[in-house]
C-alpha cells in the first residue's frame, strides 16, 4: 500500500515511476533501465532492501537510493547512510518527505527529468 501511495503521488507530480513488489524484481528493473532514484523498503520478500542497495552500489552509474525505514529506527538510518543510501525516509510521512527531497533535487543541479523505481 505504501508502494501504491508513493507511485500515485509521484506519478501525479509528473515523474515516470516503475513500481515493483520485491527486491529481486527491483534488481531486474535496475538492470534493464537507468533510474535517477530507487526508493526501497528494507524489509521485503525474496531480496531485502539491503541487497538492493548493495547491488545498486556495484553498478557503473548507481542510482540515488532512498531507503524507507520504520519510525524511530536511528541505527537503521545510520547504517543505510553508511552503506551508501542517498537519503532515508520514515514510513509515516513518506510522501511529504520524498516530495521535499525531490524539490531539493529540482532546485539543485539535476534538472527535472527524474525517473523513479519504487520497491
Amino acid at each position, binding site marked *: *500500500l*505504501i508502494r*501504491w*501511495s*508513493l507511485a*500515485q*503521488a509521484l506519478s*501525479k507530480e509528473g515523474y515516470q515511476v516503475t513500481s515493483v513488489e520485491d527486491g529481486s524484481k527491483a534488481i531486474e528493473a535496475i538492470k534493464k533501465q537507468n533510474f535517477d532514484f530507487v526508493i526501497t523498503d528494507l524489509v521485503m520478500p525474496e531480496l531485502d532492501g539491503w541487497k538492493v542497495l548493495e547491488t545498486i552500489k556495484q553498478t557503473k552509474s548507481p542510482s540515488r537510493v532512498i531507503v524507507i525505514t520504520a519510525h524511530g529506527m536511528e541505527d537503521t538510518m545510520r547504517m543505510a547512510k553508511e552503506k551508501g543510501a542517498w537519503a532515508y525516509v520514515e*514510513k*509515516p*510521512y*513518506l*510522501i*511529504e518527505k520524498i516530495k521535499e527531497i525531490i524539490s531539493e533535487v529540482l532546485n539543485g543541479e539535476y534538472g527535472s527529468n527524474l525517473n523513479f523505481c519504487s520497491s
Partner: protein
Amino acid sequence: MASMDPISISALLNDPLNFQNVPGYPDTRSLKVGHFAILKGKFTRFINPRISKILINSINSNLVHFLLNTMRRDKGNMVKILLADDDNNFGTVIKNELEEERHAVDVVNDGVEAVLRFINNVYDFVLLDIRMPRLNGTDALRIIKRINPEVPAITFSGKAGDLEMAESVRCGAMKCFRKPFEIAQLKNHIKSYVLK
C-alpha cells in the same frame, strides 16, 4: 431590471462579502473568490483575495439572483469530506485527489478523532479506513450514523477480511473498497452523491 443604489462592500482577505444590505435580500449572503461581481463598474469574476475593498458601482436584482445562484452552484459541487485513515501516505494521496476535484477534505488518523470531528463539524461525506487504532472504522461509522443517519459513507481496508468489510456495509457504508482501489471509483461515488 430595477437598478439599485451603488453599494460599497468591504472584504478582508478570505472574509465573506455581505449582501445583507441589498434590498430584498436581508439574509447574510457571502461572496467568495470565484464568484461574479461588478468590480469598478466591470462585470468580473472575483479572483483576487488580496483586494481589501470592492466597490460595486451598480447592482440590480437579476445580478443578485445570478450571484446567489452561482454561490449555490459552487457550494453544491464542493463536498465537505471527513477522511479517517491511520496510513498517512494513503490519506495524503486520497486527500490530494479529492481536493483536485474542489472538495474540502479533513483528515484524521483514528476512529475516535473521526467521531469527535464529526460531532463538532458538518460533513457531507465520510470516508473511513476499517482498521484504525483506538476505534475501528466500522464502530466509528456506527456512532456517526447515530448522529446523522443520512450522511453517506464509504469504508475501505487493506487488511480487513471479507466479513469485516461486509460488516461495515451492514453498518451503513454505501460501499467498502479493498485497498488499493481505483481512485476514479471513489470520485464517481462522490460525484453521484453531488448529482443527487
